[in-house]
Each structure stands twice: as C-alpha cells, then as structure tokens.
C-alpha cells in the first residue's frame, strides 16, 4: 500500500495547477513499483498481541501502523485501560485530569515530564487509528497537558 497521491483544493485549481498535479502524478506512477510502501503490520506477524490485536509496547513509530497522533508514552498508557463498554469509553473521553507535567513549554510536550495519574485508565477499545490528542497549556501553577478526543471537545485539567 503506497502513500496516497493527493491533490488538495482541487475544486479551485487552474490550468497551471492541473499541469503541476499531472507532472507530480506521472512521477508517482513512474515510481509505482519502486516507492516504499506504507509500513503496515500483518495481523499475525508478531507485532500485535493476540487475541486483542493491540500493538505491542515499544513498537510505536512515526508513519507506521497503527497511525497515531500520540507520543509513545501516551500510546503505552493507552494500553493500561480497563473499561470496555461504550459508556466507559465515553467516560474516558471526558476524563479531564489525565496528566500533570512540569516544565514543558506551552504547545510542547516534554515526554519525560508526563506523569500518569494511576486512577485514570484508558480504554483498550478506542479505535487505534483515532487517537487521543495532546494539548498543552501553561498556567500559573505550572504547565499541564490535557487530552482531546477527536470530535468530542477539549478535555483539559482545571
């Protein structure tokens, strides 16, 4: 499976944009059999736990399956979840206080400073291709990191 060929804003393109896209598309097709494929993992290839089919710890990476927007730390913590019901998933999504951090600048995540609150659990049943998003903000008492689940609003600590 190769990375997709994308033409953005295609509805507002012009002759020039079309020509550029055509050149780029020809190049992609020319290299179709030599370009590196996306790094997807075989179900039974040893990277997923059986039978949960969750990625094993330590195998996360940029641009590999399952795609995530998390840091590896958060990804690991996601594996600690206990709740499996839909209701519990919702609760998890709405959890507000998840991590505390010290010292990371607003907008940045300092992985080493992320501490897990043991009482908080992540659901194993969250789809792996949709991931908790990490938000960070600075405040007077130190910086914090909140989580945001796609489409369900911001969950920051207060």
């Amino acid at each position: 499976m190769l990375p997709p060929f994308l033409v953005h804003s295609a509805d507002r393109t012009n002759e020039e944009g079309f020509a550029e896209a055509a050149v780029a598309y020809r190049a992609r097709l020319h290299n179709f059999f030599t370009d590196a494929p996306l790094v997807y993992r075989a179900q039974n290839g040893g990277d997923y736990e059986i039978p949960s089919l969750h990625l094993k710890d330590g195998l996360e990476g940029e641009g590999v399956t399952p795609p995530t927007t998390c840091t590896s730390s958060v990804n690991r913590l996601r594996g600690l979840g206990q709740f499996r019901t839909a209701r519990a998933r919702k609760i998890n999504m709405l959890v507000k206080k998840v991590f505390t951090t010290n010292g990371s600048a607003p907008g940045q995540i300092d992985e080493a400073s992320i501490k897990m609150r043991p009482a908080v659990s992540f659901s194993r049943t969250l789809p792996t291709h949709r991931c908790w998003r990490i938000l960070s903000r600075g405040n007077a008492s130190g910086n914090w990191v909140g989580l945001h689940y796609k489409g369900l609003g911001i969950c920051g600590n207060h």
Partner: protein
Amino acid sequence: MLGKRAMLSVTTGGWAEQYMDRAINGPIEHLLFPINHGALF
C-alpha cells in the same frame, strides 16, 4: 491483496493544512485509513 501494490489518487476540497494533525478535517492518513488499511492492505 498480498504482494500487490495499490495507491489511492485523491482530490480534496480543502487545503493541505486542513488535513493535518489537529486540523479541522483530521490527518489525511486517518481519513484514508479504512481504505488503505481496512480494504486494500
């Protein structure tokens, strides 16, 4: 599909910046994941 190659050719209505992490439409990898990984891989 084992051993075969596939590539989606996709046009979008939004700018590239709208298909990135934290952008309104979500990362393009996520949008295409059900096809790329679910159907074609």
